[in-house]
């Protein structure tokens, strides 16, 4: 159980350990603090986007123990002790992951607001299923809305990255 403090207004604060992209962070959060807000506001990891705050758009997708989740639907206290991967953790030492490279090379990016979530959903797919069918790719990113690309080049980019396996 996380250690707690109660502030002057009587609101309980939780001391939470978050492991994000391999780095350990200790933060004080409220019980209702969303993971997306803690990542963005406390840790300045703004690659995780906010699009709807209702779990509809997928812009805030992060990996929690390797599984894609909408971080606007996860409380920060629930993420204690879990392995969190955000888009900032995908390119190791500033070297693009093959999926990221494939997004760049296949014109799969336009405004880019959905891109972090798309990459993470696709990454989770390729980790559990390195050779997906096109339908499996479409299913895997169907929780991530994109308003620019019609998903055409995103699907192409994920398929191309899978072929490199």
């Amino acid at each position: 159980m996380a250690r707690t403090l109660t502030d002057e207004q009587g609101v309980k604060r939780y001391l939470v350990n978050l492991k994000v992209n391999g780095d350990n962070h200790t933060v004080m959060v409220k019980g209702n603090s969303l993971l997306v807000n803690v990542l963005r506001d406390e840790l300045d990891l703004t690659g995780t986007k906010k699009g709807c705050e209702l779990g509809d758009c997928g812009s805030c997708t992060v990996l929690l123990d390797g599984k894609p989740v909408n971080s606007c639907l996860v409380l920060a206290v629930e993420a204690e002790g879990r392995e969190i991967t955000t888009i900032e953790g995908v390119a190791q030492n500033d070297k693009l992951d093959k999926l990221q490279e494939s997004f760049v090379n296949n014109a799969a990016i336009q405004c880019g607001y959905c891109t972090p979530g798309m990459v993470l959903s696709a990454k989770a797919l390729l980790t559990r299923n390195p050779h997906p069918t096109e339908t499996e790719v479409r299913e895997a990113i169907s929780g991530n809305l994109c308003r620019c690309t019609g998903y055409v080049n995103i699907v192409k980019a994920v398929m191309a990255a899978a072929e490199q396996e």
Partner: protein
Amino acid sequence: MSQEYAVIGKSVPRKDGWDKVTGKAKYTGDLKFPNMLVGKILTSPHAHARILSIDTSEAEKLPGVKAVITHEDVPSLKYGISPARWDENIFCIDKVRFVGDKVAAVAALDEETVYKALKLIKVEYETLPAVFDPFEAMREDAPLVQEEYPRNINTEIHQNFGDVDKAMAEAYYVRTDRFKGQRTYQSPIEPHSAISIWDKDKLTIYSSTQSPHYFQYYIAREFGLPMGNVRVLKTHIGGGFGGKLEPTGLEFAGAVLSKLTGRPVRMFYDREDMFAHNRGRHAQFMELTTGVDKDGKILAVHANFVMDGGAYTSLGVASAYYAGALLTIPYEFDNYKFDMYRVNTNLPACGAQRGHGHPQPRFAFESHLDNIAKELGIDPVEIRLRNARKSNTTTPNEFKVETCALTEALEKARDLSGWREKKGKLPSGRGIGIGVGSFVSGAGYPIYRTDLPQASAVIKVNEDGSEATLYSGSVDIGQGSDTVLCQMAAEAMGYVYEKMRIVSADTELAPHDFGAYASRQTLMSGAAVKQAGEEIKTQLLAIAAPALGVRAEELDCREGIIFVKANPEINRTFGEAAREFFVKKGPLVGRGVYHVPKLGGKFKGAAVGTSPAYSFAAQVAEVEIDEETGEVKIAEVWDVHDCGKVINPALLHAQVHGAFYMGMGESVWEQVLFDAKGKIINANLAEYRLPTALDMPRLHSDLVDTVEPNGPWGVKEVGEGATTPVMGCISNAITDAIGVRIDSLPLSYEKVWRASKERKRNTSGE
């Protein structure tokens, strides 16, 4: 050198790809400034109500709240994006006009406090009768949304070209059809936000904007500041599609909150606010009457339209004109009449959504033309070929079209799709349809009256020639203009794309440009960039010539190498020459400017629809209908575009993909819905149904070649025009599949199911 061009025509990767794919790209809402506050606007819960009193005292007492403002704290000067109809206030003064109208705003230390404070503001309202239907709104006894527009008629248009009555009287067949469009919303994935920093006499606003220029102009006007004291800029933009073209309460209220507190203020919309702010597509009510000869040649068209504008004008005057103006572009006919009423209702204001005013009328006309073809027994592709516009023609409303390859596009779409093998031969439940579209490559006139040029650009070469920076007021909202303009600059300079940097969309650092709307930047910003690049090249060749022992005219420069045209072995690098230039003459700078030549006729509204060039497209779609459920599956689509010279093929086809996607959503799924009191019931991304990756068909995007004399290197537009054929195309395919026409958008599963059932009942009853 074998290829004509070294840099343009190639699918180079986007300038911002790396930053966007790694999460480094900062959007407005990601930015942080020391001491920054967060702010939000309180909106009206009523569609039409008088404001009796506003009590902010409880909100002000909440710990963490730094300022609460109402209409008493802000300028009362009305603003808007259409100069003919400035009808919005920063906050409502006497009454609210729709659910979501702006009433007050709060700045506080964090978002949670902001939301709590908004709930503590007490507004006393006296509700007034409201009107939600444009036809009811035009009745004499209807409540007035805006007192200055009698019968709520915000814009009224009556245009008449040629002799429509005579042509109709002489026609072999005259047909009238009525169609209805729906309200849709742009739904960019990035919510709007704006960070205002009012520091002494200088106001700086970071905003998710499609046009820093219009924001700067209207913000300066509202606060009585010289334009130079207002700096508007953007970082990255998460999509716009027309919904981020005009300044919002976020900029105006944020500026005041920043001035009062002396701190930066980040204002934001949540998803529900975005739907309420709207400025999405108008719902249009479209009656079309067309007379044709016995071969299906169009003789005359009468478009008689009404559009629901919502509570304010926004860009609606232009939307109303565009709705009729562009109907004359794809097909040749001489007689045309256009009547339009844009009507105010107590609903969110509509504006410019991708294809501005044109997609719904195009849906109506393409559906109408198929009805005519069916009646005359003419194949739908054939009737379009017989009427397709040709190059070097003029429309009845006096738009000059210099290049048009619609005929070639139709033939190519027909052949690629296997139209001849499929039309009339598909199994039950399947259908094939065709639609065409077109659009302006930039509006011929800016939104407000000014003699400013459409676009300008500056290129500065680094002191040692190792890099060059393009400064342009153009705006990359995701479509890739930064990339395309860097390609154009490098081509014109004889330089290398990879060494180009760009500073764009910043009213302080970049020279004037009107921004991202009306599909204008590739042609207009591109023309200015090309001129700036050529000026660099001219200066560079002049300085490089003596060392090579030739005259400057004998030299050319390509991909960073200056060489003697007659003997390319004699050469030197761009970098060396650029360094020599700097040492001898100072900064190597090129400048470019683009003015549109005077276009269009002299009648009222003649400016809307003018453009240096028009794109054209033909599109074929194949659909599958589940007759048990009405479920519509778009199976495969072939799009063939005439968009002039292509600068970046990968980005161009990506525009077609996205434009089709948006049109497809509007065809079948998307609709903003209201309850009986004017409140949106689906202001979220679960119930406002954007298609997902599972809904997209196999989509083939192809081209026909034209070289447009009015565009740099022959370019035309693609981004908006590609949305225009989609709804008509899908409508015609669904009609082919179920044997009956649905006349209202969206062509939802329920409507398809009901129409199929009705048709079967009628057929079995015969």
